[in-house]
């Protein structure tokens, strides 16, 4: 028994052949009942793309995230960053942004109001 949540991954055309860009779309509620299982999808994605992986996390349909999911987000960021990549967050709901701010994560991971702005930031940071 787990709270409904989904993660879908889509490719984005990259401005550089050395750079992989993907949108990771989260929906539903990430909580203690499902977060360990869902986190594995992102770890697999990182393992398959060990270098210069740039991820745009689309949080438009993410309704809730608990402290453990924030812990995973921090860990993913560390793994991606140390291999020349980046994670940015887009379309965050106010309650999710509030949680990211209270744990200090917005100082580490940039947040953007739209996917287009996130894409622009990724493509101009290479």
């Amino acid at each position, binding site marked *: 028994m787990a709270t409904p949540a989904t993660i879908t991954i889509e490719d984005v055309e990259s401005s550089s052949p050395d750079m992989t860009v993907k949108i990771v779309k989260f929906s539903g509620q990430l909580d203690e009942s499902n977060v360990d299982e869902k986190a594995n999808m992102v770890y697999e994605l990182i393992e398959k793309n060990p270098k210069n992986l740039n991820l745009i996390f689309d949080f438009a349909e993410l309704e809730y995230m*608990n402290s453990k999911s924030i812990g995973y987000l921090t860990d993913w960021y560390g793994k991606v960053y140390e291999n020349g990549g980046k994670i940015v967050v887009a379309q965050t709901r*106010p309650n999710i942004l509030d949680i990211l701010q209270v744990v200090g994560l917005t100082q580490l991971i940039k947040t953007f109001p739209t996917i287009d702005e996130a894409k622009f930031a990724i493509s101009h940071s290479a």
Partner: protein
Amino acid sequence: MNDIATTIKNNKKEPIKITITLPTHAYFMSGIRDFTLSLIRNTSDFSEQWAYRFQSVVDELCNNAIEHGSSAGQEIKITFVNSPGESIEIIVEDSGTGEGTMKAEEIQKIVDERSKKDAEMHEIRGRGLAKIVKEWTDELSFTDKPDGGIMVKVKKYLGDVKSQELTQSLSFAGDQTHIVI
């Protein structure tokens, strides 16, 4: 808002106490989060932002009780004490049968360490009580229950929230070109 919720919200004198007992399983937390959101929205003077914040506070307290305090097949108890116009108090109790059970003093020490401004957090876990619960409540205490287990009590005063919101709105108004009287 329905009539009962309106009556509760307008009753500024009597605290409303609601106690829920849950089986030790994270699956039930989504329902408790929904309940918390509705309770704060409909029966308190706290804002929408705070309704969501209490949702996180309750979730983190219960997850901690489920993971460390009560083993599978046991229960945890959540009590909401809503003093309309004044404060919200949330009390979460575990049975002390979980694998990682700690004494109140030990948990307090961990939370104090992790909630320091310069505390570095490299683990997946450890932000729930120390960052979310601690930051979004005015009082946080841990007590050993006589029959085993821990009782965690948090309290948030409405007065602090309202004065912060007023400060923010005055600060915002200060950026404008008009004079706010």
